[in-house]
């Protein structure tokens, strides 16, 4: 199938400057709130089914001309709360969510992993969702993968950082593979986090959103949904404010009436909208889950030039049944450097060693950990709580040990584990033992939690869930959920593709109803 490529993907997108501070009103058949992986897929499917669709996004469209390579600039311009959002609990857990047309797909590493069938079957059994079992999502996965052009990362643009991971896994006999990604013409610039200036990443703002516009959808950006307008058990519209890009100043208001509403505002904002409206029952905002992640930095005797090559080009799913996924990592040096030990010359020395460094990361399914999302007052600011269970800390520790072993096998002369209570630099002579022996707690590392889900989970039992297997909210007649908040548990892999497959399935159900 030939990929649909859009020369001017943001053409037709309505922007903040179009509103001129006037109160904005509109109406449609289906209003989709959020243009990330879930919302954009739903908008395209619904528009192509002939429905009058409006797609709403709080952030602005960001094209290559708007992208900045400097990490701080990107954090301020593209991430909520300037990238300083934190979940609190038995530790502080940084969690980043994007605010831009395309949502997280604009800044993630384009990883498209299918959720394994045995995990979906587990969801089906544990959460009374038989409709999801036995390959029920296969057709949706195939359709999304074909539209995005998902392919395994090409060897030619892997770069030494990714190839070191490959070599280390080969030496240890650990199965590993090139990461499947939604890119076309990737040049290995390692700039996924700050946005792809080459336009190679098929983020939803350059794929599904323009396809939705071509099918007749109207796309409004810089509008923050704050309130669902309800009449009994029906949602009849959404109200909110216009938000100036990058300054995040609140401007005029808007109201959009709709016969049906799809919430795809993300795992943090969707439960807030439900809670403000008194919908979703007691479980809205509960059961927040995520993939805690940590990294080790291997230092090699030769030049690695880690800033060259696909951002996360190699991965290992060998330990997935234990809840562990291993990956190669890259992010702007400023973010990775935060963890370097020492001051002054010592710290600067680590900066100069960057060119010989290869970071590898682990994410764990964290099945024993969880938290909640609640609004701070009447605002759309989330109060995020999360507790990392000791059993999941042990899983992270095992993952770090595996990554350290892979680094040694790849030829590293030193490894920085980034763990309090463990020597800041492990040498080959020390090996992995200090990390294995350590008795670790959640507070012994800075755990990032960037895949979040489950805050409005689906389930067959309306007493223990928010939505059914089609994403329809149990206690509302015409309200659907299309983002990772509906996941009842961890997908064990990066959640984007699963979110998109579920969104396609839900949208087709809405269109058929």
């Amino acid at each position, binding site marked *: 199938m030939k990929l649909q490529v859009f020369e001017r993907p943001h053409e037709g997108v309505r922007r903040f400057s179009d509103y001129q501070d006037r109160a904005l009103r509109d109406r449609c058949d289906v209003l989709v709130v959020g243009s990330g992986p879930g919302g954009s897929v739903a908008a395209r499917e619904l528009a192509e089914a002939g429905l009058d669709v409006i797609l709403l996004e709080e952030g602005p469209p960001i094209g290559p001309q708007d992208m900045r*390579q*400097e*990490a*701080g*600039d990107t*954090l*301020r311009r593209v991430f909520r*709360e*300037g990238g*300083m959002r934190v979940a609190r609990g038995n*530790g*502080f857990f940084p969690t980043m969510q994007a605010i831009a047309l395309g949502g997280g797909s604009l800044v993630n590493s384009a990883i498209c992993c299918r959720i394994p069938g045995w995990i979906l079957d587990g969801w089906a059994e544990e959460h009374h969702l038989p409709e999801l079992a036995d390959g029920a999502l296969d057709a949706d996965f195939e359709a999304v993968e074909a539209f995005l052009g998902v392919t395994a990362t090409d060897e*030619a*643009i892997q*770069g030494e950082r990714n190839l070191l991971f490959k070599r280390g896994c080969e030496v240890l006999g650990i199965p590993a593979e090139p990461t499947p990604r939604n890119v076309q013409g990737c*040049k*290995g*610039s*390692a*700039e996924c986090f700050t946005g792809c*200036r*080459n336009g190679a990443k098929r983020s939803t703002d350059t794929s599904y959103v323009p396809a939705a516009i071509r099918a007749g959808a109207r796309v409004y950006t810089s509008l923050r949904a704050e309130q669902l307008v309800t009449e009994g058990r029906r949602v009849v519209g959404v109200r909110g404010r216009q938000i100036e890009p*990058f*300054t*995040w100043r609140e401007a005029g208001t808007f109201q959009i009436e709709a016969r049906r509403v799809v919430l795809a505002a993300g795992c943090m904002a969707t439960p807030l909208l439900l809670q403000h409206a008194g919908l979703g029952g007691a479980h809205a905002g509960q059961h927040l889950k995520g993939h805690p992640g940590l990294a080790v930095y291997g230092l090699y005797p030769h030049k690695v*030039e880690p*800033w*060259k*090559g696909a951002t996360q080009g190699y991965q290992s799913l060998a330990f997935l049944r234990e809840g562990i996924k291993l990956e190669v990592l890259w992010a*702007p*040096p*400023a*973010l990775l*450097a*935060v963890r370097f*030990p020492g*001051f*002054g*010359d010592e*710290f*600067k*020395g680590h*900066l*100069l060693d*960057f*060119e010989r460094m290869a970071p590898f990361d682990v994410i764990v399914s964290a099945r024993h950990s969880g938290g909640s999302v609640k609004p*701070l007052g009447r605002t759309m*600011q989330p109060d995020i709580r999360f507790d990392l269970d000791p059993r999941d800390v042990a899983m992270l520790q095992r993952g770090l040990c595996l990554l350290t072993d892979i680094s040694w096998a790849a030829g590293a002369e030193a490894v920085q584990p980034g763990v*309090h209570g463990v020597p800041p630099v492990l040498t080959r002579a020390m090996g992995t033992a200090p990390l294995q022996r350590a008795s670790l707690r959640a*507070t012994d590392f*800075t755990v990032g939690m960037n895949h979040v889900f489950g805050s409005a989970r689906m389930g067959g039992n309306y007493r223990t869930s928010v939505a059914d297997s089609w994403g329809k909210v149990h206690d509302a007649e015409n309200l659907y959920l299309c983002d990772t908040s509906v996941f009842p548990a961890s997908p064990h892999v990066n959640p984007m593709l699963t979110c998109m497959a579920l969104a396609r399935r839900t949208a087709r159900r809405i269109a058929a109803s």
Partner: protein
Amino acid sequence: MIEVAMVVGLVATVGLVRGWFLGYPAARPEAPSLSAKEQAVVMAAADAMFPRGGALPLSGSEAGALRYVHESLSTSPTRIRLLLRLLFVFVEHGPWVVNFRARLTRQSPEQRVATLRSWAESPVYFLRVVFTSLRTIVSLAYLSDNRVVDGIGATPNTAPFEGHKKAVLA
């Protein structure tokens, strides 16, 4: 007895006022969202972590730490702004309570490093979080300077595998 208590109280008040409010250089114009005190704290922390000289000769303040923090504060939501300001207050006055030392900006460069190092390696989680937060801001600021990025060889390149001639440098 009352006179003694009054004198002690007066001395303590003067000391507190002096320690909390006085002795800061005038605020610089490039960071209007920061008070004179906050500017002094940012400069002290940035130069403690990134002193001038060495293989990367720029200091933290020379690399534009003030401008960076000003821009971050200006575009942050109210809650984050408040947390950042509280962070600066703690970094400045925390040494009174935690280390029994003068406020950070009155310490010598060596003492500042010792103070911050003690927080980085502290068994108290809160102090490590404070240090990590400060380190994050200062590191982001330091590496926002192109001279530093070029110095470590990480100059952005949209086509790293197409040879230097075709490379598009930012």
